[in-house]
């Protein structure tokens, strides 16, 4: 069991590292953008898949990261790496605040509180003078990384992005597989029991909210550096919807399923252009098919298929799909 995922990850990493050498095959800026969404979706899934909390306002963190980084680098000339860090930090602080309010409720009520708060954040960025409203915060300089690597060069930037996203994903993987992660799963499966076992559930939830928001913010910061702009769409509720979509399509029961979902969604956005006006319809049909056939997401379904091939004992068919709790 163990070797297959790690082989896959190794192969994936290898393919990622090779991207800049095959510009005729795939465009590196597109891969960078996809990587931002990969980090965003995996960070989001810390809440949805691993803790059983549905947030419908994650764009607030993603967009805050983008705007904070953009503002600091463009207006105050802060070094790029500090800008990214600050983007993540401010998003994490916002995450603590939103989390502390939202976790006082659960299920759909929680989702609606996050949606509402993210709408307030959207309003703030729409009104704030530095964001340029719908024009966006444009021409953010990429600068240098650690004062050494010139990020104006796409290939250099690419490896920096791969490095940061990789670190983020590693952090997520570690979190999920740490004692902390086990408690989160206990909360997901049966919250009252986790409480009765003496875990400070509320504090755990706020913590995971903070972590998820911080990593989402870093994803947004990276996007601001790559495209040299932060736009209103980054904080719009459509982006919150997109990340839910990516996570579900990829499979929320797995650590890296959302990554596949993110790649799928951004590929649909990128490669359907030849269909002109029909793209929206086609995207909708693809999603519909996915919901109706791969209910556990692409990766979830694949790993289940694999498991049932390995052994046909009933135990292998136990449904490990997590469920968010609703009353």
């Amino acid at each position, binding site marked *: 069991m163990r070797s297959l995922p790690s082989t896959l990850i190794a192969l994936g990493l290898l393919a990622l590292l090779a991207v800049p050498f095959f510009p005729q095959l795939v465009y590196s800026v597109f891969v960078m953008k996809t990587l931002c969404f990969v980090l965003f979706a995996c960070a989001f899934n810390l809440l949805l898949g691993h803790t059983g909390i*549905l947030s419908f306002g994650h764009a607030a963190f993603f967009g805050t990261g983008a705007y904070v980084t953009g503002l600091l680098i463009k207006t105050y000339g802060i070094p790029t790496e500090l800008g990214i860090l600050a983007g993540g930090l401010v998003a994490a602080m916002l995450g603590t605040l939103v989390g502390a*309010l939202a976790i*006082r*409720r659960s299920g*759909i*009520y929680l989702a*609606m*509180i996050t*949606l*509402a*708060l993210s*709408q*307030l954040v*959207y*309003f703030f960025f729409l*009104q704030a003078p530095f964001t340029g409203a719908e024009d966006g915060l444009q021409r953010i300089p990429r600068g240098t990384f650690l004062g050494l690597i010139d990020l104006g060069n796409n290939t250099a930037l690419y490896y920096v992005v791969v490095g940061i996203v990789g670190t983020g994903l590693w952090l997520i993987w570690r979190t999920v597989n740490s004692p902390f992660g086990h408690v989160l799963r206990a909360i997901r499966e049966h919250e009252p029991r986790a409480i009765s076992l003496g875990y400070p559930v509320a504090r755990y939830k706020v913590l995971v909210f903070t972590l998820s928001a911080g990593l989402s913010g870093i994803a947004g910061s990276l996007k601001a550096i790559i495209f040299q702009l932060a736009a209103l769409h980054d904080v719009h*509720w459509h982006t919150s*919807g997109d990340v*839910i*979509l990516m996570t*579900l399509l990829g499979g929320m029961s797995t650590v890296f399923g959302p990554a596949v979902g993110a790649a799928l969604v951004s590929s649909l956005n990128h490669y359907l252009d030849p269909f002109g*006006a*029909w*793209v*929206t*319809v*086609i*995207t*909708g*049909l693809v*999603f*519909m098919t996915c*919901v*109706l056939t791969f*209910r556990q997401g692409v990766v979830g379904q694949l790993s289940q298929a694999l498991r049932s091939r390995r052994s046909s004992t009933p135990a292998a068919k136990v449904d490990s799909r997590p*469920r*968010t709790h*609703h*009353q």
Partner: protein
Amino acid sequence: MDIFGIPIQALLGQLMLGIVNGSFYAVLSLGLAIIFGVLKIVNFAHGAFFMLGAFTAFLLAQYMGAGYWLTLAVAPLAVALFGMLFEFLFLRRLYGLDPIYGLLLTFSLVLVLEGGFRVAFGSSGQPFATPELLRGTLNLGFMVLPLYRGFVIVSALLLCLATWFIIERTPLGASLRAATERSELTQAFGINVPRLVTLTYGVGVGLAAFAGVLAAPIFHVNPSMGSSLVIIIFAVVVIGGLGSIMGAIVTGLGLGVVEGLTRVFYSEFSSTIVFLVMVLVLLLRPAGLFGREEG
């Protein structure tokens, strides 16, 4: 007499307009609340069905020469049938799963519907005439209200009350409520629950479409007319209290008024105020204004 620098007469006028706007919210959120109550599904396609109602009315008028009154009756029925077909073919496969899957499926339907209409009819929309009979104005003393807006209030309220009556006061409504609370037991009493569920979805969708037809003469008929509405309607239902029929109606009207007043005092914030209200309500009254506290 002035209130915050606004003459009281003007303020009364704005209140009236808030009620008109709230009537749309009431009909829409009523449909969403019914669907959520029975199917436990957040119907993300509610705004798209609103659009579908308006467009069906437009198509009936444009290509079949149907008069307004006929479209007001036929379009919601047609859209309801379409909704029931969608429920029967697809949505029911997701019952018993996490509600988030229903949300995702209905969201996909939005993409298909909005995208499809944009391909077929373009993005800029279609004119739709106000019915001859309702073209005048009504002098209310403090304001001159277009007759049609008055008609919107009256018909929306009547429809809401009728729906409330059917659910709360008739045998059909009783079995519906029973199916909501104890689905298997209701089935054991010989009531066809799946059919009841399909019917409920049809009613919810039909209400959305009815609001769409009502909106067609005053709001611009275009493929994205419902897309920004849907999250506001969510908020209305949650503020009212999930599962509370009366809550959805009253909150719809109330938020219409709140939004209307915001347009006077802090216009930029008017599409966000609903969410501020929602945060406050959920933090102070967890089950919404009219919802029962959970056990």
